[in-house]
């Protein structure tokens, strides 16, 4: 039994090493004086300085964050409404149709979303740039939020709503005092997932970004296509720590929620 435990842990550790090795490889060489990714000659902060002195890059970082936060906030609102709509639709057929439509953008390859949105924006006469990127990010984040919120809604017993109504709660009270508090974990999860998708997206943005406007991933792509430049390494180190901070935040939120309603039966 003891040996088995060790073997399985070994496998897990191996997978984790494989998962993290390239990331740490990037980070390690971001301190390389030699300016390449294979010959570590000495420690330097040079590349980080370069990142922070690169105003164009800084603007792009801000752009990316603005897009991600706006897109995930807006898509969370619409997504929660969508989940509520799906939950309260009576007819099974309608519900299934809505769910299928919801899943289309999740399973669609990024290139198709990007290409079709490019056509859409061109026809609608929306100038490619901030607006088009924001709209497409909202569009592909909504179904993710719906999927994160819906299970919570479905797990909620309808008697809770009936009880609230019987006790004289208005429609708004039911929503804000019963439903929303109940599904808050789902909403948070949806928001964070949307944030991840938005920050991580490259392909869709690449299609609808046009000239002049750029997000971080598009910028990284065009730099990486030109070959190795250690500013990308420095940037990825910074992004990694940013992600860790976000993850810790998410973990703490989850922990707190687990504690407040952690009296349930758990195997």
């Amino acid at each position, binding site marked *: 039994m003891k040996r088995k435990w060790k073997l399985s*842990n070994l*496998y*897990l550790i191996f997978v984790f090493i*494989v*998962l993290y090795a*390239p*990331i740490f*490889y*990037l980070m390690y060489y971001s301190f390389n004086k030699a300016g390449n*990714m*294979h010959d570590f000659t000495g420690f330097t902060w040079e590349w980080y300085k370069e990142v922070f002195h690169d105003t164009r890059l800084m603007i792009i970082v801000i752009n990316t964050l603005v897009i991600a936060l706006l897109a995930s906030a807006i898509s969370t609102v*619409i997504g929660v409404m*969508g989940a*509520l*709509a799906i939950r*309260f*639709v009576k007819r099974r057929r309608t519900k299934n149709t*809505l769910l299928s*439509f*919801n899943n*289309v*953008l999740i*399973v*669609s*390859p*990024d*290139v*198709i979303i*990007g*290409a*079709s*949105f*490019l*056509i*859409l924006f061109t*026809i609608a006469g929306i100038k490619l740039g901030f607006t088009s990127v924001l709209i497409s990010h909202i569009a*592909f984040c*909504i179904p993710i939020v719906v999927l994160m919120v819906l299970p919570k809604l479905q797990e909620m017993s309808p008697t809770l709503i009936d009880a609230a109504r019987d006790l004289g709660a208005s*429609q708004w009270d039911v929503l804000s005092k019963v439903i929303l508090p109940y599904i808050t974990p789902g909403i948070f999860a949806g928001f964070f997932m949307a944030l991840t998708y938005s*920050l*991580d997206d*490259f*392909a869709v943005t*690449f*299609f609808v970004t046009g000239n002049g406007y750029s997000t971080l*991933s598009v910028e*990284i792509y065009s730099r*990486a*296509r030109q*070959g*190795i430049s250690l500013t*990308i390494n420095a940037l*990825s180190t910074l*992004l*990694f720590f940013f*992600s860790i901070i976000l*993850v810790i935040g*998410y*973990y703490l939120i989850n922990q707190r929620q687990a504690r407040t309603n952690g009296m349930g039966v758990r*195997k």
Partner: protein
Amino acid sequence: MKINARNLYLVPYVLWIVLFVVAPILLILYYSFFDIEGHLSLVNYEKFFTPVYLKMALNSFWYAFLITAFTLLISYPTAYLLTKSRHKQLWLLLIILPTWINLLLKAYAFLGIFGTFGPANSFLEFIGIGQKQILFTDFSFLFVSTYIFIPFMILPIYNALEELDPVFIDAARDLGASRWTTFRRVVFPLTLDGVKSGCQAVFIPSLSLFMITRLIAGNRVITLGTAIEEHFLVTQDWGMGSAIAVFLIIAMVIIMILTGNRK
């Protein structure tokens, strides 16, 4: 009054469906019937059925299949062991964390690792095989894609395993099934839905990953996605790009039907 509120929820959501789900697909379909000069024609479809494009499509499917198979092979045991470990929430977060790193950065890391003087080549030299061209080959494309997709396969399988009622396992064990039989006859069939959605989450994107092929495989590997990107953004032949996209959508629908969860 009750119905009003319900419709209020529906309005933005249905609007979203119409504008960003239905309309784009119809537009793709519409554009696929126009040639590069803007005349209505079937020339794009004729072109798709020439050996050049068919071979490209088949290749693309083959690569996607390989990537999915490798990813599944690595991910299932990982997900299984994760559910058994202590602090699984923390481990799960550690699995998710790499997906928060932009996949371009991960692909970029392999430019260094697989490069001529990178650690992969140093290792090959150390074990006596000698320096090889790793970057810009099929192998590097498969490796990097598998690497990138592992977390996306682990998560649905992990969730399926978590949902699995341990009572079934206890029952199977009590009834005398060996560990392997329990896994093969009970655990795996019951988590098949997770495996299916994992495969869905890997197979479809791997048909369309143009950025990895561009960065890692040079122009050696051309997937459906690469071809679409090329037609839309480089040659500006939106018609042909849309025609390929239509086939990609058809492929996607078939895959979804095959891996659909019937409940």
